């Protein structure tokens, strides 16, 4: 039961940070999103994002910061096996499923739906 609570709190707090970047720092929606992705990447670079996932579960994996974490995670894992080239090949190692899914489902949706304006 506790994991649900912390998922709610941590996930919510990440969104609060996003809302503050948007409202207070006056970032555009795209800048807000990119900032959160970069923040996730940096946290994982210091090895801090995994403990956050262990602690808050989906509260840390669902927000966009998790995408930054996944980018760095894949790159570091591949780098351990293949050296420097692994950084290049590894960036999309973990995230490829998410990116491909976004492209495929986005395409399918565009075939069916028409924006209402």
């Amino acid at each position, binding site marked *: 039961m506790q994991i649900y609570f912390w998922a709610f709190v941590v996930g919510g707090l990440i969104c609060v940070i996003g809302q503050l970047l*948007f409202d207070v720092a*006056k970032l555009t*929606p795209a800048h807000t999103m990119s900032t959160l992705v970069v923040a996730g990447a940096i946290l994982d670079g210091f090895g801090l994002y995994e403990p956050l996932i262990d602690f808050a579960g989906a509260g840390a994996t669902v927000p966009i910061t998790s995408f930054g974490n996944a980018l760095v995670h894949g790159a570091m894992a591949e780098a351990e096996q293949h050296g420097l080239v692994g950084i290049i090949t590894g960036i999309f190692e973990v995230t490829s499923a998410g990116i491909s899914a976004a492209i495929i489902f986005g395409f399918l949706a565009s075939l069916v739906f*028409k*924006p209402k*304006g």
Partner: protein
Amino acid sequence: MLHGHQTWEFHNKPYILSSAAVGGPFEGKGPLANDFDILHGDTWLGQDSFEKAEKKLFEQACEKAIEKAGLKKEDIQFFLAGDLLNQIISSSFTARTLSVPYLGLFGACSTSMEALALGALIVNSHSAEHVLCGAVSHNSSVEKQFRYPTEYGGQKPPTAQWTATAAGVAVLGKTGTGPRVTAATIGRVVDMGLSDPFNMGAAMAPAAVDTIEAHFRDLGRTFDDYDLVATGDLAKVGLPIAKDLLEKHGFKAPDHFVDCGMMIYGKDQPVIAGASGAGCSAAVTYGHILNRLRRGELKRVLIVATGALLSPLSFQQKESIPCIAHGVVIENI
């Protein structure tokens, strides 16, 4: 003709022979629905892009206004129009359809009154029998150009305004019947350094005040000389700022000082601060306000259309927003 510093008085008092307003589905749910000549149930208007739909809105408003005046398009000497899309394509493409001699205008949301002022000047100086003037905007095409595409679903702050899907057109004539255009005050560009395209009302309020004060000064009038003074479109954020500024300068803003951007939609419609767009003040003036003049409910009105003269490029380069307002007096004589 020139009266004071920046005001024209039209001694021949050109007639507004007819006018037409065309709106979209959201406008049809608003309190002014009965003042529209044509309302569409679908924002696409049967077209395959929102830009084409905007052009269609304008074409229909022009056709309707000419038809209501009992004229044919061959009877119109000049077409004065503008819109908010890049290179004012909606107006130019409508002019292509009409094939009437055309002057394209850009004054952002102040275009409606810029066109009416210049149209009245042309008719007043015997340079034309009939002039067609108007403005148009479409929510989905304009939001895409100046803010984000509506499909993007970006959050909007509480100061943001909602671009109206509407077109307003009027036919001016030298002789005939109808409300008459008696004066116009051309505004200057005012820039108070605001740069947030989600808070245009606050940026435009000083321009509206500048033009209203110039108008009162040039003609020696006050709010009491008008049954209605309507800005377009300052909305909920800009109108109180304009009232405060006027009060500081010694003009007490009365209850009949209103804003077109707060009239077109109802309280239950989620438009945040209110409406905006070149078509908003055009449709409210040429629909609702002219209908009230024709019914005799109003005798003399001053419409002050305000425009934010930014471009997407100037915004990206972090420029502030220069603003303008033009005032036109319409009265029953």
